């Protein structure tokens, strides 16, 4: 609070507001909000930490907010804007080195302690990323700064994350602003800051997965094409009931990228509700998790972190693109076989066969039956991927009934120990 300060203030304020106006596109009331910067005590008194932390310590928080978010929020929270000013003014360097720029340089904490911790979290930094440091520094803040800070480390539980995602998709990803998200979530133990950093993570995670998914979609599409060539269309041009044709392709070995069933179209192995901090289940483990009776694969994979079994969120985020991966297999098969008693009406069946006759295919005219390869493929499909849903979904017989019946026929062990046939 030197005598100089007011004068410095005014010039600086002008400069800063200019800077802000140009860099961030808004103007700030400089008078109240920019007192002597050199005196952090005052500064901190003025800055409204309420929405950041419950403790107003003598430490300026690491404010990681991406510029666009910041712009949105600063209109609401003018007080926090005071932290932006520092990059342009070197005088703040020792106290308040916040680097927030349109280029997204990383946030530099103002303290050596913080800097150390920031360095520690470098692994979480993605310098190529547009946004500043990841939300994990929030944890650093908690641990780094003196124990005065009573901020609770936010554990993004599946439930919490789900609400977060709901809120984000309600707002629209582009418009999802932490303060609104917080409102929508209605969670009181979350600060806007927590939400902001989580949002960052979420966005970058999505971008990453989008790229992977695009690549996988191309891959599965190619497989589908090849699959159709080899098994879907028989030599005599007979394609086994249009809706069955893709089925043999699914008999192919599981494609690499986290895909369980590879439906021909719109293959998502996105895991939108997966919280990246949590351990995941390797999808290749899934076959062993196959429970007794035919759940859809998504349920079979429902280990705690991977709790997405409801596909309803994802399509909304994606503006109606198709469903999440595991259940696509279910859905893919379900429609053709829905209401199967109607699906196999006598006239319909006969019609399927008629066109094949007289076409002079390599098969003899009397051979009505499916080709061995197709049958083999279908049966092999059941053997290799037992978790797939039943194609017809007939009501299963009681296990006891079957076993009793088998005992009557002299079969004591199911499955039989000795090979048969």
């Amino acid at each position, binding site marked *: 609070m030197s005598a100089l300060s007011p004068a410095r203030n005014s010039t600086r304020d002008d400069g800063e507001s200019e800077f802000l106006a140009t860099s961030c596109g808004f103007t700030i009331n400089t008078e109240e909000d920019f007192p002597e910067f050199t005196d952090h005590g005052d500064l901190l008194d003025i800055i409204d930490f309420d929405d950041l932390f419950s403790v107003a310590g003598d430490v300026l928080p690491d404010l990681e907010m991406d510029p666009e978010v910041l712009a949105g929020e600063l209109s609401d929270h003018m007080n926090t804007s005071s932290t932006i000013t520092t990059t342009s003014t070197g005088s703040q360097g020792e106290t308040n080195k916040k680097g927030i720029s349109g280029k997204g340089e990383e946030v530099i904490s103002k303290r050596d302690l913080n800097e150390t911790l920031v360095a520690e979290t470098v692994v979480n930094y993605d310098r190529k990323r547009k946004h500043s440091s990841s939300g994990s520094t929030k944890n650093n803040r908690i641990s780094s700064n003196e124990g005065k800070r009573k901020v609770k480390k936010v554990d993004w539980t599946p439930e919490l994350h789900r609400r977060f995602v709901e809120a984000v998709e309600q707002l629209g990803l582009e418009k999802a602003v932490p303060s609104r998200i917080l409102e929508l979530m209605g969670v009181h133990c979350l600060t806007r800051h927590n939400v902001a950093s989580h949002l960052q993570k979420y966005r970058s995670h999505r971008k990453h997965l989008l790229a992977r998914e695009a690549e996988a979609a191309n891959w599965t599409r190619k497989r589908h094409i090849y699959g159709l060539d080899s098994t879907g269309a028989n030599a005599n041009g007979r394609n*086994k*009931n249009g809706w*069955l044709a893709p089925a043999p392709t699914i008999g192919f070995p599981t494609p690499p990228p986290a895909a369980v069933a590879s439906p021909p179209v719109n293959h998502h192995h996105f895991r939108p509700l997966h919280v990246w901090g949590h351990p995941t289940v390797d999808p290749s483990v899934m076959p062993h998790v*196959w429970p*007794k*009776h*035919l759940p859809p694969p998504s349920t079979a994979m429902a280990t705690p972190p991977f709790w997405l079994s409801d596909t309803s969120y994802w399509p909304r985020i994606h503006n109606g693109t198709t469903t999440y991966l595991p259940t696509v297999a279910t859905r893919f098969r379900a429609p053709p076989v829905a209401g*199967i*008693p109607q699906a*196999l*009406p*006598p006239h319909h*069946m*006969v019609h*399927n*066969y*008629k066109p094949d*006759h*007289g076409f002079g295919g390599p098969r003899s*005219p*009397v*051979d*009505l*039956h*499916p080709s061995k390869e*197709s*049958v*083999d493929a*279908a*049966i*092999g*499909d*059941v*053997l290799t991927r*037992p978790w*797939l849903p*039943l*194609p*017809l*979904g*007939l*009501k*299963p*017989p*009681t*296990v006891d*009934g*079957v*076993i009793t*019946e*088998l005992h009557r*026929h*002299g*079969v004591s062990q*199911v*499955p*039989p120990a000795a*090979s*048969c*046939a």
Partner: protein
Amino acid sequence: MAGSSSASYIHMVQHMIEKCLIFHMSKEECVEALSKHANITPVITSTVWKELEKENKEFFKAYEERQSKQEQMSEEETNQMIQKIISDSSKDSDD
């Protein structure tokens, strides 16, 4: 554990039978296919088939009807009929 492995085995057999049903195979064909491609004991296949039939009477009834309708006109007859249609139409175009 024997119980659940039986159950899953039976489920698997049911799954395979359903695949055969999609191919409109008869019970005998199904038994043969499962035995050949998956080493399923014929008696198991036929037992599971019968039990499925009990649980899904309407479905199998329609299924059988379809099968019998196919048999009404034998494959040869159908083939001949179609050949006739083709030759008739080509005759027409000649004229």
